[in-house]
């Protein structure tokens, strides 16, 4: 927390000259932002992580006071193929009968805004930039569009929201003086490793006027890394090692017990 505060403060100092200058740039408002950390290390006792997204809005002109300002922050995990199945009763038992295949759905998706989404983003802009959870999934529909396919997507979203894998945090972005902003996104413990793309949108009247994006690298480290690599690069050795450990533990325990008894 101390470190974030420090970086936040340094950022502020660095930005001050930018506000002083009256440049002739054509972009009236621009986002400058950073993350409290650009790497998340997954080690054995990884139990989730909080990422602080912070920044400022750089302006060449005075603050336009007429149009309401919106800030939207999205963090998206690596996408994967998903099959959503639905059960129905066949001959008295519940069986998977319908399935919808999603070619790409983010394994993690968090949206934070400074106000209700409908106030800061028009549906056209949402569609264009694929901002909200529904857009992020719908954008990648490919096969088997059943007539009730939306229900399958809703089920996916509902289940992943329960696991904190999909988050919508309206009001999660704190905006100070219409210039400085910050937001904390809680990454759950069941993360998939990969590149987490972080996007920040600045909107006026629901239209995106500026966007910023950066990457958050989620990686396994230490023993986790070693085991994962071994399992994928030398699967036969890994399998044999697993058996060996199992046998050694079984034998070891029986030796210890015999020793205790005698």
């Amino acid at each position, binding site marked *: 927390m101390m470190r974030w505060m420090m970086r936040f403060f340094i950022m502020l100092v660095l930005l001050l000259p930018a506000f002083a200058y009256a440049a002739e740039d054509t972009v009236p408002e621009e986002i400058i932002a950073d993350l409290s950390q650009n790497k998340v290390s997954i*080690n*054995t*006792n*990884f*139990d*989730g992580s909080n990422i602080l997204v912070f920044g400022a809005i750089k302006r060449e002109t005075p603050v336009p006071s007429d149009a309401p300002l919106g800030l939207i922050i999205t963090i998206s995990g*690596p*996408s*994967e*193929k*998903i*099959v*959503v*199945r*639905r*059960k*129905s*009763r066949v001959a*008295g*038992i*519940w*069986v*998977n009968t319908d399935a919808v295949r999603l070619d*790409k759905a983010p394994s993690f998706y968090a949206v934070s805004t400074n106000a209700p989404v409908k106030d800061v983003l028009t549906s056209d802009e949402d569609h264009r930039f694929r901002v909200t959870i529904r857009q992020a999934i719908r954008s990648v529909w490919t096969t088997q569009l059943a007539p009730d396919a939306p229900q*399958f997507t809703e*089920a*996916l979203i509902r*289940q*992943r929201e329960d696991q904190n894998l999909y988050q919508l945090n309206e009001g999660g972005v704190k905006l100070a003086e219409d210039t400085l902003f910050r937001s904390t996104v809680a990454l759950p*413990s*069941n*993360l*998939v*490793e*990969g590149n987490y793309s972080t996007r920040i949108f600045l909107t006026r009247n629901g239209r995106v006027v500026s966007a910023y994006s950066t990457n958050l690298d989620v990686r*396994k480290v230490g*023993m*986790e*890394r070693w*085991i*994962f690599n071994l*399992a*994928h690069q030398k*699967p*036969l050795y*890994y*399998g*044999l090692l*697993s*058996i060996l*450990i*199992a*046998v050694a*533990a*079984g*034998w*070891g*325990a*029986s030796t210890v*017990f015999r020793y205790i008894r005698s």
Partner: protein
Amino acid sequence: MQVYLPIAEVSVSAFLLLGLGGIVGVLSGMFGVGGGFLITPLLFFIGIPPSVAVATGTNQIVASSFSAVLAHLKRKTVDLRMGSVLLAGGLIGAAVGVKLFSVLKAIGQIDLLVQLSYVGFLGVIGLLMFFESLRAIRRSKRAGSVPKRKHHTWIHALPFKMKFRTSGLYTSVIPPLVIGAMVGVLSAIMGVGGGFIMVPAMIYLLGMPTKVVVGTSLFQIIFVTGFTTIMHAVTNFSVDMVLAVLLLIGGVIGAQIGTRIGAKLKAEQLRILLAILVLAVCAKLALDLLIEPSDLYSITRAGGLG
């Protein structure tokens, strides 16, 4: 204490896994079942992806069975010859099972088939064992006479006969080969050792003495599940070493306690307890199929990050 599992990619409590391994270990030591039919569904329940649960379950069975088999070898309650015949069948079955698994997975109905076969197998075997052991207990109470064990049926009339001295049998190798192969198929598909099927089959079909049945089935199980673990590691990369180690620490301790409890109980009592356990799991799975699930939808990660 939370632990992040590198292959399953979830974070779970270490104590939960230790406890889970311990309970299953006690049962495995007592009854000579690998406990896979309990541990695999329990792992699903705490949120481990099914493919990882199945593969890691088989690895855990190797460990808990190994310490139990050592205990049985010392008490000379393993029929090595019969075990080897069962094993030969088991390896063939496991290889077939892995093939079958990929075919069923492509169709998308593997869960249903696994559940239905669980309910069928467990139900029939549990009921048979339950009533047989009830009868045995009543008989021993009334007269105190030893029940007749060796009844010669058509099974003993099959060709390729072999002498199994430890079991006191002279019988065909075909039935044990077939039983071993069936158990091998189940091991690959369900992530179970198959003891819950093999133990009753050995008692009722082969007529082996209850004393050597547990040790012999464990002997076969460690090799078949070991083989299955390697197959899963190579084809699906789904064996989670951290998960396995935590489960087996609990498991090996539990198995030692279980073996001791098992030695104190009478064979009929042991059998009726196992029958009740098998029926309870069967009932739970049957209810899952019959009662409307709270969520009709299920998500499967089809693999391949993109």
